[in-house]
C-alpha cells in the first residue's frame, strides 16, 4: 500500500494496463487523420460519455495532460465565456486558503488576479468571508477554485451555498477534481454547482502515476461552456465551436493511456465505480477509527467522520519527543511501508488515503505499524529512550547496519528490524539509510559527463 493522501494511489490492475500494448493503439500517431483512427475515436466518444456521467457535465475535453493543465484549460474556458458575454473584465479568482498551490499558479497563468478567502478553525471555507469578498468584487468576479471534498479530507457542508454565492455574483465555479475518488457514483461536480472540473485520470481512474507521469487531466464542463473547449490545429473535430486555443500539442493528450481509464470504467461498470468510492470512504474511516485513539485527527466532518483521506496531527511530537514527521516517515520504511504524504496540506502532519484497493488485512498491518511507532514515540516522551539516539531518528535501518558487529545503538537490532510480528514473514530491506536532505539541496552536483568523454576512444 502506498497511502499517499491528496494523490489517490490506487491499484493499477494488469488487465487495465494490457491494452496499451495493443499495436493498433500503441503505434498510432497523435495527428493521424480521423478515418485512420476510428477505433480511437470510438473509445474517446464512449470515455467522454462515461466521464460526463461521472461528473454530471455536458461535455468533456480529453486534451489536457495533467491536473494543472486541466486547471489552466478550464480557467481559459471560463475566461472565453466571460469575454463572449462582454464581461472581459471578470478577472478576479477567489481561492480558499486551504487550496493546493497549483490552483493559484494556474489562475495567474490564465490571467486571473487572485483573492484569497479564509478558512475557519475546522478547516472549512469561511462562508461569511467568501460572501464578503464575492460582494466586494462582484463587478469583476470571474471564478472560484474549490476542491471537494476539501484538501483537509472533509466534505464541505456548505458547498452548494458556496457555489450559489459565486453564481449570484456573476462568477463561474472551477472544481479541482483531485479528490474525485470520494465522489464517483455518489455525487458529482455538476450536483454541487460547479461549472468546470478536471479529472485526474491518473488518480481516480487507475492510470499509474509517480515519477513524473504521464498523467491525464481532462476537463468536463456544463452545457453553457461546451462551445469553448480547447481545439486543435491538427484536427478540426476537436473542441467546441468557439474553441480556445489548444492547451496540448496532441488533440487528445496522452491518448494511449486513456485506454487504462476506459478499461477501468468498463470493467467496473456504474455499480462497481460506486462501490469503489464507498470502499475508499469506508477504508479511510476504518483507519481513522483505529488510529484516533493514538493520534489526533486534524479535521473531521459533523458526524465525526472523514471523507476518503485524513490528516494525522504529529505537531506535538516535535515538542514532546523531538520527533519530526519525517522521522515517522523514515521509520515506516522499517515496517515495510511507503510513507503517506508528509507536511501537506499542513506542516508536520501525515495525510493518509488508503483508497478502495486494499483489503482489511493490509489496512490492519498499516494501522499496527502506526500504533507501534506511536509507542516508540511515547518511550521518548516519557524519557525511556534518548531524544537524539532512538529508533525513529536512526531510521531506516539497512540489513548492513543490523548485522554490523559494532552495533552500538541503545536498542536491539531486533527492535530496529523486527518491531512487529508480521515483519518476520514479510520484511522489506531498505537499500540506504537516512540521506542528508539539507546537504543535498544545498550542494547541487551536475552529473553530466564532460564533453571530452564523448570523444571516440
Amino acid at each position, binding site marked *: 500500500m502506498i497511502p499517499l493522501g491528496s494523490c489517490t494511489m490506487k491499484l493499477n490492475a494488469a488487465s487495465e494496463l494490457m491494452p496499451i500494448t495493443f499495436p493498433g493503439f500503441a503505434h498510432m500517431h497523435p495527428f493521424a487523420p480521423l478515418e485512420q483512427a476510428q477505433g480511437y475515436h470510438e473509445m474517446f466518444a464512449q470515455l467522454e460519455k462515461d466521464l460526463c456521467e461521472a461528473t454530471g457535465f455536458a461535455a468533456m475535453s480529453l486534451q489536457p495532460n495533467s491536473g494543472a493543465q486541466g486547471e489552466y484549460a478550464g480557467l481559459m474556458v471560463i475566461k472565453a465565456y466571460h469575454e463572449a458575454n462582454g464581461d472581459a473584465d471578470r478577472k478576479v479568482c477567489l481561492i480558499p486558503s486551504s487550496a493546493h498551490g497549483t490552483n493559484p499558479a494556474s489562475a495567474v497563468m490564465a490571467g486571473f488576479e487572485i483573492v484569497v478567502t479564509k478558512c475557519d478553525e475546522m478547516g472549512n471555507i469561511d462562508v461569511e468571508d467568501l460572501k464578503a469578498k464575492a460582494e466586494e468584487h462582484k463587478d469583476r468576479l470571474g471564478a472560484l477554485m474549490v476542491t471537494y471534498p476539501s484538501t483537509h479530507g472533509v466534505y464541505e457542508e456548505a458547498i452548494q451555498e458556496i457555489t450559489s454565492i459565486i453564481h449570484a455574483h456573476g462568477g463561474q465555479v472551477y472544481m479541482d477534481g483531485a479528490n474525485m475518488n470520494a465522489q464517483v457514483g455518489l455525487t458529482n461536480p455538476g450536483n454541487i454547482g460547479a461549472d468546470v472540473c478536471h479529472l485526474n485520470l491518473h488518480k481516480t481512474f487507475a492510470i499509474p502515476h509517480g515519477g513524473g507521469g504521464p498523467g491525464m487531466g481532462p476537463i468536463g464542463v456544463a452545457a453553457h461552456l461546451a462551445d469553448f473547449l480547447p481545439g486543435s490545429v491538427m484536427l478540426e473535430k476537436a473542441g467546441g465551436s468557439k474553441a480556445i486555443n489548444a492547451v496540448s500539442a496532441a488533440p487528445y493528450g496522452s491518448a494511449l493511456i486513456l485506454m487504462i481509464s476506459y478499461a477501468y470504467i468498463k470493467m467496473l461498470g456504474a455499480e462497481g465505480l460506486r462501490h469503489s468510492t464507498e470502499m475508499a470512504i469506508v477504508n479511510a474511516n476504518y483507519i481513522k477509527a483505529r488510529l484516533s485513539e493514538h493520534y489526533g485527527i486534524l479535521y473531521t466532518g459533523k458526524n465525526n467522520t472523514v471523507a476518503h483521506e485524513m490528516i494525522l496531527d504529529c505537531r506535538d511530537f516535535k515538542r514532546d519527543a523531538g520527533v*519530526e514527521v*519525517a522521522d515517522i516517515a523514515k521509520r515506516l520504511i522499517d515496517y515495510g511501508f511507503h510513507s503517506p504524504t*508528509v*507536511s501537506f496540506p499542513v*506542516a508536520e502532519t501525515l495525510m493518509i488515503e488508503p483508497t478502495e484497493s486494499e483489503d482489511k488485512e493490509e489496512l490492519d498491518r498499516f494501522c499496527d505499524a502506526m500504533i507501534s511507532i506511536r509507542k516508540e514515540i511515547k518511550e521518548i516522551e516519557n524519557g525511556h529512550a534518548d531524544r537524539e539516539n532512538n529508533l525513529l531518528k536512526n531510521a531506516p535501518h539497512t540489513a548492513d547496519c543490523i548485522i554490523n558487529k559494532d552495533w552500538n545503538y541503545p536498542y536491539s537490532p531486533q527492535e530496529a528490524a523486527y518491531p512487529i510480528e508480521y515483519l518476520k514473514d514479510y520484511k522489506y530491506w531498505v537499500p540506504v539509510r537516512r540521506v542528508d*536532505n*539539507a546537504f543535498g*539541496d*544545498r550542494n547541487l552536483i551536475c552529473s553530466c559527463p564532460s564533453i571530452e568523454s564523448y570523444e571516440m576512444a
Partner: protein
Amino acid sequence: MNIPQELKYTKDHEWVKVEGDIATIGITDFAQGELGDIVYVEVETEGETLDAEEVFGSVEAVKTVSDLFMPIAGEIVEFNEELESEPESVNSDPYGAGWMIKVKVADTAQLDALLDADAYKALVG
C-alpha cells in the same frame, strides 16, 4: 526560544533592528525552527522600493518554500550575499549572520506598529 528584547517583530515572524534610518531584517528563531534546514534564500529585490507587507523574497527549506514579507515600507539597499553560499546561517544564527536585508525606512511612524518582544512572545506562545 530566543526572542531578543531589543528587536521589533511582525506576525509573519520577521525581526527588525533599526539603526538611524536603516532597518536590518531577518526571520526569527521560531520561524527558522518551524521551517527546518534552510537550503536557499532568494532575494531579487535589491534596489527596489516596496510597501509594507509586500513580498521581498523567499526562503526555501527542505520541506517547504515560504514568502518573505516587508515589515515596513522602504528601499532595499542591501542583501546579505553571504546567504547565497551559507543559507544555513539563518538556522544557526537567525539574528546575527542570518540577517537578510537592509532597508532605508520610508516612514519611521510605521515602526511603531511593529510588535515588541513581549507581544511577539505572546503570539508564538
